[in-house]
Protein backbone atom coordinates (compact mmCIF):
# COMPACT_ATOMS: atom_id res chain seq x y z
CA UNK A 1 0.00 0.00 0.00
CA UNK A 2 1.22 3.49 -0.79
CA UNK A 3 -0.38 6.16 1.35
CA UNK A 4 -1.57 9.45 -0.19
CA UNK A 5 -0.39 8.43 -3.62
CA UNK A 6 -2.45 9.56 -6.64
CA UNK A 7 -2.38 8.09 -10.11
CA UNK A 8 -5.25 8.43 -12.58
CA UNK A 9 -7.46 5.41 -13.14
CA UNK A 10 -6.41 4.85 -16.74
CA UNK A 11 -2.75 4.76 -15.86
CA UNK A 12 -3.52 2.28 -13.10
CA UNK A 13 -5.61 0.13 -15.42
CA UNK A 14 -2.69 -0.04 -17.82
CA UNK A 15 -0.32 -0.91 -14.96
CA UNK A 16 -2.72 -3.62 -13.76
CA UNK A 17 -2.83 -5.19 -17.22
CA UNK A 18 0.97 -5.09 -17.46
CA UNK A 19 1.31 -6.53 -13.97
CA UNK A 20 -0.77 -9.58 -14.91
CA UNK A 21 1.86 -10.41 -17.53
CA UNK A 22 4.76 -10.51 -15.04
CA UNK A 23 6.22 -13.99 -14.79
CA UNK A 24 4.85 -15.93 -11.83
CA UNK A 25 1.93 -13.51 -11.27
CA UNK A 26 -1.52 -15.16 -11.48
CA UNK A 27 -3.58 -12.01 -11.01
CA UNK A 28 -2.86 -8.42 -10.07
CA UNK A 29 -4.51 -5.06 -9.60
CA UNK A 30 -3.18 -1.58 -8.98
CA UNK A 31 -5.99 0.69 -7.80
CA UNK A 32 -6.85 3.66 -5.65
CA UNK A 33 -8.39 2.27 -2.44
CA UNK A 34 -11.96 3.50 -3.01
CA UNK A 35 -14.88 1.47 -1.62
CA UNK A 36 -15.82 0.35 -5.17
CA UNK A 37 -12.31 -0.89 -5.82
CA UNK A 38 -12.07 -2.68 -2.50
CA UNK A 39 -15.33 -4.48 -3.24
CA UNK A 40 -14.02 -5.59 -6.63
CA UNK A 41 -10.66 -6.66 -5.17
CA UNK A 42 -12.55 -8.73 -2.65
CA UNK A 43 -14.52 -10.48 -5.43
CA UNK A 44 -11.25 -11.15 -7.24
CA UNK A 45 -9.71 -12.47 -4.00
CA UNK A 46 -7.11 -9.72 -4.11
CA UNK A 47 -8.05 -7.87 -0.91
CA UNK A 48 -5.92 -8.20 2.20
CA UNK A 49 -6.58 -6.68 5.63
CA UNK A 50 -4.09 -3.93 4.87
CA UNK A 51 -6.00 -3.12 1.68
CA UNK A 52 -9.32 -3.22 3.51
CA UNK A 53 -8.12 -0.55 5.92
CA UNK A 54 -6.66 1.73 3.25
CA UNK A 55 -8.34 5.05 2.56
CA UNK A 56 -9.47 6.38 -0.82
CA UNK A 57 -6.35 8.53 -1.21
CA UNK A 58 -4.12 5.48 -0.83
CA UNK A 59 -2.98 3.20 -3.61
CA UNK A 60 -3.15 -0.59 -3.37
CA UNK A 61 -0.83 -2.91 -5.25
CA UNK A 62 -2.36 -6.39 -5.06
CA UNK A 63 -0.60 -9.43 -6.44
CA UNK A 64 -1.72 -13.05 -6.41
CA UNK A 65 1.06 -15.57 -6.97
CA UNK A 66 2.16 -19.03 -5.83
CA UNK A 67 5.11 -17.99 -3.74
CA UNK A 68 6.25 -15.17 -1.50
CA UNK A 69 9.17 -14.50 -3.84
CA UNK A 70 6.89 -14.27 -6.89
CA UNK A 71 4.67 -11.81 -5.00
CA UNK A 72 7.65 -9.67 -4.03
CA UNK A 73 9.00 -9.80 -7.56
CA UNK A 74 5.60 -8.67 -8.91
CA UNK A 75 5.25 -5.85 -6.39
CA UNK A 76 8.78 -4.59 -7.03
CA UNK A 77 8.22 -4.54 -10.79
CA UNK A 78 4.92 -2.65 -10.41
CA UNK A 79 6.48 -0.23 -7.95
CA UNK A 80 9.29 0.46 -10.41
CA UNK A 81 6.76 1.21 -13.19
CA UNK A 82 4.82 3.51 -10.88
CA UNK A 83 7.81 5.60 -9.98
CA UNK A 84 9.38 5.63 -13.44
CA UNK A 85 9.70 9.24 -14.58
CA UNK A 86 7.68 10.02 -17.72
CA UNK A 87 9.46 10.68 -21.00
CA UNK A 88 9.74 14.39 -21.55
CA UNK A 89 9.16 14.65 -25.31
CA UNK A 90 6.15 16.86 -26.12
CA UNK A 91 5.26 17.08 -22.45
CA UNK A 92 4.87 20.19 -20.35
CA UNK A 93 4.06 20.95 -16.76
CA UNK A 94 2.20 24.24 -17.23
CA UNK A 95 -0.36 25.51 -19.72
CA UNK A 96 1.87 28.51 -20.40
CA UNK A 97 4.77 26.29 -21.44
CA UNK A 98 2.49 24.17 -23.62
CA UNK A 99 1.12 27.30 -25.30
CA UNK A 100 4.61 28.59 -25.97
CA UNK A 101 5.24 25.38 -27.83
CA UNK A 102 1.87 25.57 -29.64
CA UNK A 103 0.83 29.24 -29.76
CA UNK A 104 -1.94 28.58 -32.29
CA UNK A 105 -3.68 25.90 -30.17
CA UNK A 106 -7.46 26.12 -30.64
CA UNK A 107 -8.78 23.38 -28.37
CA UNK A 108 -7.93 22.03 -24.94
CA UNK A 109 -9.05 18.68 -23.57
CA UNK A 110 -9.22 18.66 -19.78
CA UNK A 111 -9.49 15.39 -17.87
CA UNK A 112 -8.33 16.11 -14.33
CA UNK A 113 -10.29 15.59 -11.09
CA UNK A 114 -13.28 17.93 -11.27
CA UNK A 115 -12.54 19.95 -8.16
CA UNK A 116 -9.45 21.33 -9.90
CA UNK A 117 -11.13 22.02 -13.25
CA UNK A 118 -12.31 25.57 -12.61
CA UNK A 119 -8.86 27.06 -12.20
CA UNK A 120 -7.45 25.30 -15.27
CA UNK A 121 -10.42 25.94 -17.56
CA UNK A 122 -10.61 29.63 -16.62
CA UNK A 123 -6.99 30.00 -17.55
CA UNK A 124 -7.53 28.22 -20.90
CA UNK A 125 -10.52 30.42 -21.76
CA UNK A 126 -8.57 33.55 -20.86
CA UNK A 127 -6.00 32.38 -23.39
CA UNK A 128 -8.66 32.00 -26.09
CA UNK A 129 -9.02 28.22 -26.27
CA UNK A 130 -12.20 26.21 -26.68
CA UNK A 131 -12.43 23.49 -24.06
CA UNK A 132 -13.61 19.89 -24.07
CA UNK A 133 -14.07 19.27 -20.36
CA UNK A 134 -14.12 15.54 -19.72
CA UNK A 135 -13.86 15.85 -15.93
CA UNK A 136 -16.84 14.96 -13.76
CA UNK A 137 -17.65 16.35 -10.32
CA UNK A 138 -17.50 20.00 -11.37
CA UNK A 139 -20.02 21.98 -9.32
CA UNK A 140 -22.98 23.63 -11.04
CA UNK A 141 -21.70 27.02 -9.85
CA UNK A 142 -18.35 26.38 -11.53
CA UNK A 143 -20.02 25.06 -14.69
CA UNK A 144 -22.29 28.10 -14.91
CA UNK A 145 -19.41 30.50 -14.38
CA UNK A 146 -17.12 28.77 -16.88
CA UNK A 147 -19.80 28.58 -19.56
CA UNK A 148 -20.71 32.23 -19.15
CA UNK A 149 -17.07 33.21 -19.38
CA UNK A 150 -16.73 31.08 -22.53
CA UNK A 151 -19.85 32.60 -24.05
CA UNK A 152 -18.64 36.13 -23.36
CA UNK A 153 -15.51 35.28 -25.29
CA UNK A 154 -17.31 33.47 -28.11
CA UNK A 155 -15.77 30.15 -27.08
CA UNK A 156 -17.23 26.75 -26.19
CA UNK A 157 -16.90 24.80 -22.97
CA UNK A 158 -18.06 21.31 -23.95
CA UNK A 159 -18.69 19.65 -20.59
CA UNK A 160 -18.16 19.00 -17.74
CA UNK A 161 -18.67 15.29 -18.09
CA UNK A 162 -18.45 15.50 -21.89
CA UNK A 163 -16.32 12.73 -23.27
CA UNK A 164 -17.39 12.84 -26.89
CA UNK A 165 -17.18 15.30 -29.76
CA UNK A 166 -16.31 15.19 -33.43
CA UNK A 167 -14.74 18.46 -34.55
CA UNK A 168 -13.27 19.25 -37.95
CA UNK A 169 -13.52 15.55 -38.81
CA UNK A 170 -11.53 14.37 -35.81
CA UNK A 171 -12.82 12.16 -33.00
CA UNK A 172 -12.27 13.84 -29.65
CA UNK A 173 -11.94 11.50 -26.64
CA UNK A 174 -14.67 8.81 -26.80
CA UNK A 175 -15.88 9.21 -30.36
CA UNK A 176 -16.19 7.07 -33.43
CA UNK A 177 -14.63 7.37 -36.84
CA UNK A 178 -17.46 8.43 -39.13
CA UNK A 179 -17.40 10.01 -42.55
CA UNK A 180 -17.59 13.77 -42.99
CA UNK A 181 -20.96 15.01 -44.10
CA UNK A 182 -23.75 17.47 -43.52
CA UNK A 183 -25.39 16.30 -40.29
CA UNK A 184 -24.59 18.51 -37.29
CA UNK A 185 -25.14 17.03 -33.84
CA UNK A 186 -25.51 18.71 -30.45
CA UNK A 187 -25.64 16.23 -27.60
CA UNK A 188 -25.96 16.50 -23.85
CA UNK A 189 -25.53 12.73 -23.92
CA UNK A 190 -22.21 11.11 -24.82
CA UNK A 191 -23.18 7.66 -26.03
CA UNK A 192 -26.27 9.26 -27.59
CA UNK A 193 -23.89 11.28 -29.74
CA UNK A 194 -21.95 8.11 -30.54
CA UNK A 195 -25.06 6.12 -31.51
CA UNK A 196 -26.46 8.92 -33.67
CA UNK A 197 -23.17 9.60 -35.45
CA UNK A 198 -22.59 5.88 -36.09
CA UNK A 199 -26.12 5.32 -37.42
CA UNK A 200 -25.90 8.43 -39.59
CA UNK A 201 -22.71 6.92 -41.00
CA UNK A 202 -24.45 3.55 -41.50
CA UNK A 203 -27.23 5.34 -43.31
CA UNK A 204 -24.73 6.60 -45.88
CA UNK A 205 -24.42 10.15 -44.55
CA UNK A 206 -21.73 11.88 -42.57
CA UNK A 207 -21.22 14.30 -39.70
CA UNK A 208 -20.20 17.93 -40.09
CA UNK A 209 -19.58 18.61 -36.40
CA UNK A 210 -20.82 16.76 -33.31
CA UNK A 211 -20.59 18.72 -30.10
CA UNK A 212 -20.95 17.17 -26.65
CA UNK A 213 -22.24 19.71 -24.14
CA UNK A 214 -22.22 17.61 -20.97
CA UNK A 215 -25.43 16.36 -19.35
CA UNK A 216 -25.59 19.27 -16.92
CA UNK A 217 -26.02 21.82 -19.69
CA UNK A 218 -29.76 21.13 -20.00
CA UNK A 219 -30.44 21.65 -16.30
CA UNK A 220 -32.16 24.83 -15.09
CA UNK A 221 -29.07 26.02 -13.27
CA UNK A 222 -27.09 26.14 -16.53
CA UNK A 223 -29.94 26.95 -18.90
CA UNK A 224 -28.53 25.25 -22.01
CA UNK A 225 -25.76 27.81 -22.54
CA UNK A 226 -23.53 25.50 -24.61
CA UNK A 227 -26.43 23.82 -26.41
CA UNK A 228 -27.71 27.18 -27.65
CA UNK A 229 -24.20 28.29 -28.69
CA UNK A 230 -23.75 25.00 -30.56
CA UNK A 231 -27.09 25.31 -32.37
CA UNK A 232 -26.18 28.85 -33.40
CA UNK A 233 -22.78 27.71 -34.68
CA UNK A 234 -24.26 24.78 -36.64
CA UNK A 235 -26.90 27.07 -38.12
CA UNK A 236 -24.10 29.34 -39.36
CA UNK A 237 -21.83 26.46 -40.42
CA UNK A 238 -22.10 26.13 -44.19
CA UNK A 239 -21.26 22.43 -44.21
CA UNK A 240 -24.20 21.59 -41.93
CA UNK A 241 -27.61 21.14 -43.55
CA UNK A 242 -29.56 19.50 -40.71
CA UNK A 243 -29.19 19.75 -36.92
CA UNK A 244 -29.85 16.86 -34.52
CA UNK A 245 -30.23 17.61 -30.82
CA UNK A 246 -29.90 14.70 -28.38
CA UNK A 247 -30.38 14.70 -24.63
CA UNK A 248 -31.77 12.84 -21.67
CA UNK A 249 -34.77 14.81 -20.37
CA UNK A 250 -33.85 18.49 -20.14
CA UNK A 251 -35.46 20.51 -17.38
CA UNK A 252 -38.75 21.73 -18.91
CA UNK A 253 -37.75 25.40 -19.00
CA UNK A 254 -34.50 24.54 -20.78
CA UNK A 255 -36.31 22.30 -23.24
CA UNK A 256 -38.65 25.18 -24.05
CA UNK A 257 -35.70 27.53 -24.41
CA UNK A 258 -33.98 25.15 -26.83
CA UNK A 259 -37.13 24.58 -28.88
CA UNK A 260 -37.96 28.31 -28.96
CA UNK A 261 -34.43 29.14 -30.04
CA UNK A 262 -34.39 26.44 -32.72
CA UNK A 263 -37.77 27.57 -33.98
CA UNK A 264 -36.98 31.26 -34.10
CA UNK A 265 -33.32 31.34 -34.99
CA UNK A 266 -32.67 28.48 -37.40
CA UNK A 267 -33.50 28.00 -41.04
CA UNK A 268 -32.32 24.38 -41.23
CA UNK A 269 -34.39 21.34 -40.29
CA UNK A 270 -33.90 20.40 -36.63
CA UNK A 271 -34.47 16.86 -35.30
CA UNK A 272 -34.80 16.53 -31.54
CA UNK A 273 -34.54 13.47 -29.35
CA UNK A 274 -35.18 14.31 -25.71
CA UNK A 275 -35.11 10.74 -24.41
CA UNK A 276 -37.73 10.13 -21.76
CA UNK A 277 -39.06 13.69 -21.83
CA UNK A 278 -42.67 14.51 -22.49
CA UNK A 279 -43.11 14.22 -26.24
CA UNK A 280 -43.78 17.41 -28.16
CA UNK A 281 -45.43 17.25 -31.56
CA UNK A 282 -43.59 18.46 -34.65
CA UNK A 283 -43.82 22.20 -35.12
CA UNK A 284 -43.54 24.55 -38.08
CA UNK A 285 -42.88 28.22 -37.41
CA UNK A 286 -41.51 30.65 -39.96
CA UNK A 287 -40.73 27.76 -42.30
CA UNK A 288 -38.45 26.00 -39.78
CA UNK A 289 -39.63 22.57 -38.92
CA UNK A 290 -38.72 20.94 -35.63
CA UNK A 291 -39.06 17.16 -35.82
CA UNK A 292 -39.58 15.51 -32.48
CA UNK A 293 -38.51 11.89 -31.90
CA UNK A 294 -38.54 9.58 -28.90
CA UNK A 295 -35.47 7.41 -29.50
CA UNK A 296 -31.99 7.75 -30.97
CA UNK A 297 -33.02 5.23 -33.62
CA UNK A 298 -36.00 7.38 -34.63
CA UNK A 299 -33.90 10.56 -34.61
CA UNK A 300 -31.54 9.04 -37.16
CA UNK A 301 -34.35 7.69 -39.36
CA UNK A 302 -35.95 11.14 -39.30
CA UNK A 303 -32.63 12.73 -40.25
CA UNK A 304 -32.10 10.28 -43.09
CA UNK A 305 -35.57 11.02 -44.44
CA UNK A 306 -34.57 14.63 -45.02
CA UNK A 307 -31.16 14.14 -46.53
CA UNK A 308 -30.81 10.55 -47.74
CA UNK A 309 -32.60 8.14 -50.02
CA UNK A 310 -35.15 5.66 -48.58
CA UNK A 311 -32.87 2.76 -49.50
CA UNK A 312 -30.30 3.81 -46.90
CA UNK A 313 -32.92 3.76 -44.16
CA UNK A 314 -33.38 0.02 -44.65
CA UNK A 315 -29.69 -0.48 -43.96
CA UNK A 316 -30.12 0.30 -40.27
CA UNK A 317 -33.74 -0.50 -39.52
CA UNK A 318 -35.85 -3.63 -39.55
CA UNK A 319 -39.57 -4.21 -39.99
CA UNK A 320 -41.64 -5.44 -37.03
CA UNK A 321 -42.30 -8.85 -38.62
CA UNK A 322 -38.57 -9.26 -39.32
CA UNK A 323 -37.80 -8.54 -35.68
CA UNK A 324 -40.48 -11.02 -34.62
CA UNK A 325 -38.96 -13.73 -36.80
CA UNK A 326 -35.53 -13.26 -35.19
CA UNK A 327 -36.99 -13.26 -31.71
CA UNK A 328 -38.96 -16.45 -32.34
CA UNK A 329 -35.69 -18.16 -33.11
CA UNK A 330 -33.84 -16.74 -30.10
CA UNK A 331 -36.49 -17.43 -27.47
CA UNK A 332 -36.86 -21.13 -28.23
CA UNK A 333 -36.30 -23.29 -25.19
CA UNK A 334 -36.85 -20.60 -22.54
CA UNK A 335 -38.49 -21.84 -19.35
CA UNK A 336 -41.76 -20.25 -18.20
CA UNK A 337 -40.09 -18.74 -15.14
CA UNK A 338 -37.51 -16.95 -17.32
CA UNK A 339 -39.31 -13.64 -17.72
CA UNK A 340 -36.97 -10.75 -17.00
CA UNK A 341 -34.65 -8.57 -19.03
CA UNK A 342 -31.28 -7.56 -17.59
CA UNK A 343 -29.38 -4.75 -19.26
CA UNK A 344 -25.65 -4.35 -18.59
CA UNK A 345 -24.68 -1.06 -20.15
CA UNK A 346 -21.45 0.87 -20.30
CA UNK A 347 -23.11 3.75 -22.18
CA UNK A 348 -25.42 5.88 -20.01
CA UNK A 349 -27.55 7.25 -22.83
CA UNK A 350 -28.01 3.84 -24.39
CA UNK A 351 -29.08 2.52 -20.98
CA UNK A 352 -31.56 5.37 -20.81
CA UNK A 353 -32.91 4.62 -24.28
CA UNK A 354 -33.34 1.00 -23.12
CA UNK A 355 -35.36 2.17 -20.11
CA UNK A 356 -37.59 4.35 -22.29
CA UNK A 357 -38.32 1.44 -24.64
CA UNK A 358 -38.75 -1.21 -21.96
CA UNK A 359 -41.05 1.05 -19.95
CA UNK A 360 -43.27 1.12 -23.01
CA UNK A 361 -43.11 -2.58 -23.87
CA UNK A 362 -42.78 -4.40 -20.54
CA UNK A 363 -43.78 -1.81 -17.93
CA UNK A 364 -41.83 -1.22 -14.74
CA UNK A 365 -38.10 -1.41 -15.19
CA UNK A 366 -35.65 -0.92 -12.35
CA UNK A 367 -32.32 0.80 -12.66
CA UNK A 368 -29.55 2.50 -10.76
CA UNK A 369 -30.26 5.48 -13.06
CA UNK A 370 -34.00 5.18 -13.71
CA UNK A 371 -36.33 7.35 -15.80
CA UNK A 372 -38.74 7.45 -12.87
CA UNK A 373 -37.15 7.64 -9.41
CA UNK A 374 -39.73 5.23 -7.94
CA UNK A 375 -37.97 2.48 -9.87
CA UNK A 376 -34.51 3.11 -8.54
CA UNK A 377 -32.81 -0.12 -7.53
CA UNK A 378 -32.48 -0.25 -3.76
CA UNK A 379 -29.06 -1.76 -4.16
CA UNK A 380 -27.14 -1.28 -7.40
CA UNK A 381 -25.21 -4.47 -6.86
CA UNK A 382 -28.43 -6.55 -7.00
CA UNK A 383 -30.83 -6.55 -9.95
CA UNK A 384 -34.58 -6.81 -9.36
CA UNK A 385 -37.11 -8.13 -11.88
CA UNK A 386 -36.53 -6.21 -15.14
CA UNK A 387 -33.39 -4.17 -14.52
CA UNK A 388 -31.16 -2.01 -16.67
CA UNK A 389 -27.81 -0.98 -15.21
CA UNK A 390 -25.71 1.98 -16.19
CA UNK A 391 -22.32 0.65 -15.12
CA UNK A 392 -20.75 4.04 -15.83
CA UNK A 393 -22.52 5.58 -12.82
CA UNK A 394 -20.49 6.71 -9.87
CA UNK A 395 -21.16 3.72 -7.60
CA UNK A 396 -19.36 1.50 -10.12
CA UNK A 397 -16.60 3.89 -11.17
CA UNK A 398 -15.32 5.63 -8.05
CA UNK A 399 -11.54 5.49 -8.46
CA UNK A 400 -11.83 3.17 -11.46
CA UNK A 401 -11.65 3.61 -15.20
CA UNK A 402 -15.03 3.80 -16.97
CA UNK A 403 -16.48 0.39 -17.97
CA UNK A 404 -16.07 1.37 -21.63
CA UNK A 405 -12.35 0.98 -20.88
CA UNK A 406 -12.22 -1.48 -18.00
CA UNK A 407 -14.55 -4.48 -18.50
CA UNK A 408 -14.05 -5.99 -15.01
CA UNK A 409 -17.27 -4.73 -13.42
CA UNK A 410 -19.44 -5.98 -16.27
CA UNK A 411 -17.64 -9.30 -16.47
CA UNK A 412 -18.36 -9.95 -12.80
CA UNK A 413 -21.96 -8.75 -13.05
CA UNK A 414 -22.74 -10.89 -16.08
CA UNK A 415 -21.85 -14.02 -14.12
CA UNK A 416 -24.11 -12.93 -11.27
CA UNK A 417 -27.03 -12.30 -13.64
CA UNK A 418 -26.52 -15.70 -15.29
CA UNK A 419 -27.07 -17.40 -11.93
CA UNK A 420 -30.59 -15.95 -11.65
CA UNK A 421 -33.03 -18.54 -13.05
CA UNK A 422 -35.67 -15.87 -13.73
CA UNK A 423 -33.55 -14.03 -16.28
CA UNK A 424 -34.85 -14.50 -19.83
CA UNK A 425 -32.34 -12.39 -21.72
CA UNK A 426 -29.27 -10.23 -21.14
CA UNK A 427 -28.58 -7.19 -23.28
CA UNK A 428 -25.39 -5.17 -23.53
CA UNK A 429 -23.75 -2.41 -25.50
CA UNK A 430 -20.28 -2.82 -26.98
CA UNK A 431 -18.91 0.69 -27.44
CA UNK A 432 -16.18 1.14 -30.03
CA UNK A 433 -14.21 4.18 -31.05
CA UNK A 434 -11.27 6.11 -29.74
CA UNK A 435 -10.92 6.07 -25.97
CA UNK A 436 -12.72 2.74 -25.57
CA UNK A 437 -11.21 -0.66 -24.75
CA UNK A 438 -9.12 -1.98 -27.67
CA UNK A 439 -11.22 -5.16 -27.87
CA UNK A 440 -14.43 -4.70 -25.86
CA UNK A 441 -16.22 -7.70 -27.38
CA UNK A 442 -13.21 -9.97 -26.92
CA UNK A 443 -12.93 -8.82 -23.30
CA UNK A 444 -16.47 -10.10 -22.62
CA UNK A 445 -16.25 -13.43 -24.48
CA UNK A 446 -14.91 -15.59 -21.64
CA UNK A 447 -17.52 -14.25 -19.24
CA UNK A 448 -20.25 -14.77 -21.85
CA UNK A 449 -19.23 -18.41 -22.32
CA UNK A 450 -19.06 -18.86 -18.56
CA UNK A 451 -22.54 -17.31 -18.17
CA UNK A 452 -23.97 -19.66 -20.76
CA UNK A 453 -22.32 -22.62 -19.06
CA UNK A 454 -23.90 -21.62 -15.73
CA UNK A 455 -27.32 -21.57 -17.44
CA UNK A 456 -26.68 -24.87 -19.22
CA UNK A 457 -25.68 -26.60 -15.98
CA UNK A 458 -28.99 -25.39 -14.58
CA UNK A 459 -30.80 -26.81 -17.61
CA UNK A 460 -31.60 -23.36 -19.06
CA UNK A 461 -30.78 -21.45 -22.20
CA UNK A 462 -29.65 -17.85 -21.76
CA UNK A 463 -29.96 -15.60 -24.82
CA UNK A 464 -27.43 -12.76 -24.80
CA UNK A 465 -27.95 -9.85 -27.19
CA UNK A 466 -25.55 -7.06 -28.05
CA UNK A 467 -25.45 -3.85 -29.98
CA UNK A 468 -22.02 -2.95 -31.26
CA UNK A 469 -21.93 0.84 -31.48
CA UNK A 470 -19.14 1.66 -33.87
CA UNK A 471 -17.92 1.56 -37.44
CA UNK A 472 -15.49 -0.51 -39.46
CA UNK A 473 -13.22 2.54 -39.49
CA UNK A 474 -12.98 2.55 -35.68
CA UNK A 475 -9.72 1.19 -34.24
CA UNK A 476 -11.58 -1.94 -33.04
CA UNK A 477 -13.34 -2.57 -36.42
CA UNK A 478 -17.01 -3.31 -35.97
CA UNK A 479 -17.12 -6.40 -38.20
CA UNK A 480 -14.33 -8.01 -36.14
CA UNK A 481 -16.16 -7.24 -32.92
CA UNK A 482 -19.44 -8.66 -34.21
CA UNK A 483 -17.55 -11.77 -35.37
CA UNK A 484 -16.13 -12.32 -31.88
CA UNK A 485 -19.57 -12.06 -30.30
CA UNK A 486 -21.12 -14.43 -32.80
CA UNK A 487 -18.53 -17.10 -32.02
CA UNK A 488 -19.85 -17.22 -28.44
CA UNK A 489 -23.47 -17.29 -29.56
CA UNK A 490 -24.39 -13.63 -29.06
CA UNK A 491 -27.03 -12.18 -31.37
CA UNK A 492 -26.17 -8.63 -32.47
CA UNK A 493 -28.47 -5.81 -33.60
CA UNK A 494 -27.84 -2.78 -35.78
CA UNK A 495 -29.29 -0.32 -33.26
CA UNK A 496 -29.66 -0.27 -29.50
CA UNK A 497 -33.40 0.33 -29.88
CA UNK A 498 -33.91 -2.82 -31.98
CA UNK A 499 -31.91 -4.90 -29.48
CA UNK A 500 -34.01 -3.59 -26.60
CA UNK A 501 -37.29 -4.19 -28.45
CA UNK A 502 -36.10 -7.74 -29.17
CA UNK A 503 -35.31 -8.29 -25.49
CA UNK A 504 -38.82 -7.16 -24.57
CA UNK A 505 -40.31 -9.72 -26.96
CA UNK A 506 -38.04 -12.44 -25.59
CA UNK A 507 -38.98 -11.77 -21.99
CA UNK A 508 -42.69 -11.16 -22.62
CA UNK A 509 -43.85 -13.86 -24.96
CA UNK A 510 -47.40 -12.43 -24.99
CA UNK A 511 -46.54 -9.18 -26.83
CA UNK A 512 -48.39 -9.33 -30.14
CA UNK A 513 -47.35 -8.11 -33.56
CA UNK A 514 -50.11 -5.49 -33.32
CA UNK A 515 -48.59 -4.13 -30.09
CA UNK A 516 -45.16 -4.10 -31.68
CA UNK A 517 -46.53 -2.28 -34.72
CA UNK A 518 -48.01 0.39 -32.46
CA UNK A 519 -44.69 0.71 -30.61
CA UNK A 520 -42.85 1.11 -33.90
CA UNK A 521 -45.16 3.93 -34.94
CA UNK A 522 -44.52 5.87 -31.75
CA UNK A 523 -40.91 5.08 -30.98
CA UNK A 524 -39.08 3.92 -34.07
CA UNK A 525 -40.93 4.96 -37.21
CA UNK A 526 -41.15 8.71 -37.28
CA UNK A 527 -43.70 9.10 -40.05
CA UNK A 528 -46.29 9.63 -37.30
CA UNK A 529 -47.18 13.20 -36.55
CA UNK A 530 -46.41 14.52 -39.99
Amino acid at each position, binding site marked *: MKTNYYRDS*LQLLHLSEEAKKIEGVKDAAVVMATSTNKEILSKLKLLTNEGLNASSTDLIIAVLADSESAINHGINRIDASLTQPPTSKG*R*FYTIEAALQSMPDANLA*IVSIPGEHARRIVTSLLEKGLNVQLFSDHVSQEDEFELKNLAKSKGLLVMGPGAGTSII*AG*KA*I*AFANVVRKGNVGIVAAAGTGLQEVSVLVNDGGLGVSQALGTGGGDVKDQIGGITTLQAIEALERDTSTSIIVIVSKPPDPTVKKKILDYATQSTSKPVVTCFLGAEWSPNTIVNGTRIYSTRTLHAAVLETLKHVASPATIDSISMLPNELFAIVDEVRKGLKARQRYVRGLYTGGTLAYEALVILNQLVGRVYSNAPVNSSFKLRNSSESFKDSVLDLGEEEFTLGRAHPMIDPTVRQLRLIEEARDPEVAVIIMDIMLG*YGSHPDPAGAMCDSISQAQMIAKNDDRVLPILAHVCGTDQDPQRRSDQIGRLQTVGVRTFSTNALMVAASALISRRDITLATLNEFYKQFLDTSQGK
Partner: protein
Amino acid sequence: MVEKILKLFNSDLKVINIGLEIFKNDLESQKVSVVQVSWQPYPKLEKEYEDILSKIL
Protein backbone atom coordinates in the same frame (compact mmCIF):
# COMPACT_ATOMS: atom_id res chain seq x y z
CA MET B 1 -21.09 35.59 -31.59
CA VAL B 2 -19.86 32.28 -32.89
CA GLU B 3 -17.07 33.34 -35.27
CA LYS B 4 -14.37 31.74 -33.13
CA ILE B 5 -16.35 28.50 -33.00
CA LEU B 6 -16.79 28.51 -36.77
CA LYS B 7 -13.08 29.11 -37.07
CA LEU B 8 -12.50 26.01 -34.91
CA PHE B 9 -14.77 23.96 -37.21
CA ASN B 10 -12.79 25.04 -40.26
CA SER B 11 -9.22 24.88 -38.97
CA ASP B 12 -6.81 22.06 -38.39
CA LEU B 13 -7.15 21.08 -34.76
CA LYS B 14 -4.27 22.07 -32.50
CA VAL B 15 -4.83 20.55 -29.11
CA ILE B 16 -3.48 21.00 -25.61
CA ASN B 17 -4.29 17.86 -23.64
CA ILE B 18 -4.36 18.19 -19.88
CA GLY B 19 -4.73 14.91 -18.02
CA LEU B 20 -5.33 11.49 -19.53
CA GLU B 21 -2.64 10.68 -22.09
CA ILE B 22 -4.86 8.25 -23.96
CA PHE B 23 -6.60 11.26 -25.54
CA LYS B 24 -3.27 12.60 -26.77
CA ASN B 25 -2.31 9.24 -28.26
CA ASP B 26 -5.71 8.86 -29.97
CA LEU B 27 -5.49 12.33 -31.52
CA GLU B 28 -1.96 11.71 -32.70
CA SER B 29 -3.10 8.56 -34.44
CA GLN B 30 -5.57 10.80 -36.32
CA LYS B 31 -2.66 13.05 -37.27
CA VAL B 32 -3.76 15.90 -34.98
CA SER B 33 -1.04 18.07 -33.40
CA VAL B 34 -1.20 17.68 -29.62
CA VAL B 35 0.93 18.77 -26.70
CA GLN B 36 0.58 17.13 -23.33
CA VAL B 37 0.40 18.91 -20.01
CA SER B 38 1.21 16.52 -17.18
CA TRP B 39 -1.02 17.21 -14.26
CA GLN B 40 -0.74 16.26 -10.61
CA PRO B 41 -3.05 17.33 -7.79
CA TYR B 42 -1.83 20.38 -5.95
CA PRO B 43 -0.20 19.40 -2.67
CA LYS B 44 -2.44 19.97 0.32
CA LEU B 45 -1.24 23.10 2.12
CA GLU B 46 -2.22 24.90 5.25
CA LYS B 47 -4.79 27.55 4.35
CA GLU B 48 -2.50 30.47 5.18
CA TYR B 49 0.21 29.14 2.85
CA GLU B 50 -2.37 28.53 0.14
CA ASP B 51 -3.57 32.15 0.45
CA ILE B 52 -0.02 33.46 0.17
CA LEU B 53 0.69 31.23 -2.83
CA SER B 54 -2.50 32.24 -4.64
CA LYS B 55 -1.48 35.90 -4.21
CA ILE B 56 1.98 35.24 -5.61
CA LEU B 57 0.71 33.14 -8.53
